[in-house]
């Protein structure tokens, strides 16, 4: 449905926001000196740093300048086995016997120490993953600390979470986390597992292992009994060794739907419990009665937050036809103002794409979008010479069947579609294999609840987007996975209930 709509653009009565200014932002870089990164990291097993039996290390680099930051041990199956044995030993001998309120105090300690070292963690998060320091400083790290704090409190209160049942831990949890929110995902995984009395073998993502290894340092300093948390870095093979290890009782995975399906398949026939938090293609729906300027900000935050490396990103925008021209114009104006560049600069809105590989994926989708005939608009901002970058991009006049409207791109790319009726947009929004999140923008409360009821998604944001809280459950419907993380419901995947 290309380019016939242009003529119909009505003259808008609203004032065009004037972003042009002679004022430029002076650089406001965060100092790297507040962070310590070792030259080499070993595996954290049984409370100690140990050399990998694989004898292999791999580099982790800064995607903003392609410079090597450190090298990290690559765990093979034998290393994973060592970690699982340590976790099993800690589970049987210490952790499951410990009074719940003492367990709680360890987790509270970890929360406090993450808070104490928040600045350092934020800097490393931005260096290793490319996300803007404003996001790592104001969102990732504090939310990670808060997750530990929140779940610490649950440890001795499980009887109230599951009335009329006894709660028992599962045993050893194998946890595999993604590269988009490295420390936060580690917290989402470790905190509820420990609170419910499980021990952990966690694998951080290959491109962003550093903050998880820093967390290992914190765990060591906290005096947590050895073996309760083990952190083994590595790639896909390391993950597979965790998934297939016979002495693991629970797999918690956050990542792509593709890998999630493989994991679900490979544990078939075992007694392993599993939670999957997978991909998404969230519909963000704007009705004509929505507060338009707020909605514009919500859309920008919804899709460009963390370079769009967000499984719940609002990457499919549905605009009611009557307000579409105005909204699209405002969105185009708004992305022109986004500052793309140095992740450590406090002015930066969009940092570096996490890896070369991910940048290639995004570029492939940009090409597909153009080839399928959709109108592409990208910000005209300059990009740094080195590193991996992508301008914030909008596709308009996108069809429901377009690949850029169906598949998860995981980058700063927004597909815009339009609709006329409630019925139509509900149909369109639900017409995807995913079901992680959705957004609704309208001034009418009764319409919000109509939509939240009909959306087949695990999290619905109304007149806001990308909000997270330790007390609020998060997770998907359909192929976005199952199980919830966060809140009271986030305890359930880590317990067996008995009479």
């Amino acid at each position, binding site marked *: 449905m290309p380019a016939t709509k242009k003529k119909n653009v009505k003259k808008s009565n609203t004032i065009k926001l004037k972003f042009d200014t002679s004022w430029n932002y002076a650089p406001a870089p965060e100092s790297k000196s507040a962070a310590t990164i070792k030259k080499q990291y070993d595996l954290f097993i049984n409370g100690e740093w140990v050399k990998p039996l694989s004898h292999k290390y791999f580099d982790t680099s800064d995607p903003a300048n392609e410079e090597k930051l450190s090298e990290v041990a690559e765990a093979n199956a034998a290393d994973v086995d060592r970690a699982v044995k340590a976790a099993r030993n800690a589970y049987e001998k210490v952790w499951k016997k410990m009074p719940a*309120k003492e367990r*709680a*105090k360890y987790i*509270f300690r970890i929360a406090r120490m993450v808070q104490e070292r928040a600045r350092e963690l934020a800097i490393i998060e931005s260096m290793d993953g490319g996300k803007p320091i404003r996001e790592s400083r104001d969102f990732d790290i504090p939310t990670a600390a*808060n997750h530990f*704090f*929140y779940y*610490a*409190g*649950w*440890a*001795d*209160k499980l009887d*109230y*979470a599951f009335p009329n049942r006894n709660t028992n831990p599962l045993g050893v949890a194998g946890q595999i986390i993604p590269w988009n929110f490295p420390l936060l995902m580690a917290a989402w995984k470790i905190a509820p597992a420990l609170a419910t009395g499980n021990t952990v073998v966690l694998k951080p993502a290959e491109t962003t292992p550093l903050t998880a290894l820093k967390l290992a340092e914190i765990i060591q300093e906290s005096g947590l009994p050895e073996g309760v948390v083990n952190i083994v870095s590595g790639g896909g093979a390391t993950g597979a060794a965790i998934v297939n290890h016979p002495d693991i009782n629970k797999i918690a995975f956050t990542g792509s739907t593709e890998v999630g399906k493989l994991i679900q398949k490979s544990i078939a026939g075992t007694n392993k419990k599993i939670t999957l938090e997978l991909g998404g293609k969230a519909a963000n729906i704007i009705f004509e009665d929505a507060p338009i300027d707020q909605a514009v900000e919500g859309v920008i935050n919804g899709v460009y937050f963390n370079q769009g490396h967000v499984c719940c990103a609002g990457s499919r925008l549905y605009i009611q036809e009557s307000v579409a021209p105005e909204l699209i114009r405002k969105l185009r104006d708004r992305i022109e103002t986004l500052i793309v560049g140095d992740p450590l600069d406090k002015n930066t809105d969009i940092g570096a794409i996490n890896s070369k590989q991910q940048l290639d994926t995004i570029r492939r989708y940009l090409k597909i979008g153009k080839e399928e005939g959709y109108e592409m608009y990208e910000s005209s901002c300059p990009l740094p010479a080195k590193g991996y970058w992508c301008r914030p991009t909008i596709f308009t006049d996108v069809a429901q069947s377009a690949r850029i409207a169906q598949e998860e791109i995981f980058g700063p790319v927004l597909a815009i579609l339009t609709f006329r*009726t*409630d*019925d139509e947009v*509900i*149909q369109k929004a*639900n*017409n995807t294999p995913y079901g992680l999140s959705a957004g609704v923008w309208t001034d*009418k*409360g*009764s*319409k919000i*609840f*109509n939509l939240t*009821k*009909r*959306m*087949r998604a695990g999290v619905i944001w109304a007149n806001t987007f990308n909000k997270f*809280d*330790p*007390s609020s459950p998060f997770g998907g419907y*359909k192929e976005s996975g199952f199980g919830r993380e966060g*809140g*009271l419901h986030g305890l359930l995947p880590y317990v067996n209930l008995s009479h």
Partner: protein
Amino acid sequence: MEKEIKKSSLSVSENGIEKKISPKRLEVLKTYKIYIGGQFPRTESGRYYVAVNAAGKQLANVCLSSRKDFRDAVVSARNAFAGWSERAAFNRGQILYRMAEMLEGRKIQFTDELMQQDVPKAKAEKEVNLAIDRLIYYAGWCDKYQQVFSAVNPVATSHFNFSVPEPTGVVSIIAPQEDGLLGLISVVAPVIAGGNTCIVLASGSKPLCAVTFAEVINSSDVPGGVVNILTGKVSELSSWFVSHMDVNATIYCEKDSTVQKMMQDKAALNVKRVIFYDKINWNTDEGQSPYLIMDTQEIKTTWHPIEHIAGSGGGY
């Protein structure tokens, strides 16, 4: 009087600090004052009583708080209520945890005070440890009791209907007489964890820890007025605690049935909630529960229409 002072006892280091405490050094005694609105005033009445231990040793002159002190404290508590109840529950949790941290750092002081008030050492240490753990227990509840006690109600009409607990307001508390520290913390923590503010009358016979605990509160980012601590006589103050028209609930922890009846009677003045904790053993886990938080909560139900325009939706 000793005529000779040993040289070693006077020896000072180069910077003038004593190397060891001279036997001649006179101890500085603490003035035990009350705690209102984040300040440590003396009672406006100017009256005092002498706290003594079982052997009759004088421990301190303690404020004999008046009705006016109580009224001042209610004003402070009411003023603090909006800010405290509207804080993020998570933030209240952080502050209660901070109180536990501060108490942990002053364990020795509290153990010592309990011992002065005739508690044997082992028991005193246990009481202080329990008190710290109890604060942590309630720090954890601050952002969780709502999840346990709220409900989304499946009403038959097309409405989104939910019920959530909210703090009742200003709570007056007469703390347990027996456990000077643990009793006080056990009744105050659930009240403030739930977002209420309070005025608490400390144990009359064991008031020292209550006043010292005010110092813990004062250094834990608890806003002034959230907890107000008075010392004095139950017999003088209990009727004012329960008859004040700007107090929403009263907690009483003793078994005195005459006082209980008086309280139930006077509470009717403004339909105050009266809560008796006369059967709880604060020294066990029985002394802590989210139901104690719920005792000073109201339940608020909200109705909101759900539009039914589209016919489709659940199909996928």
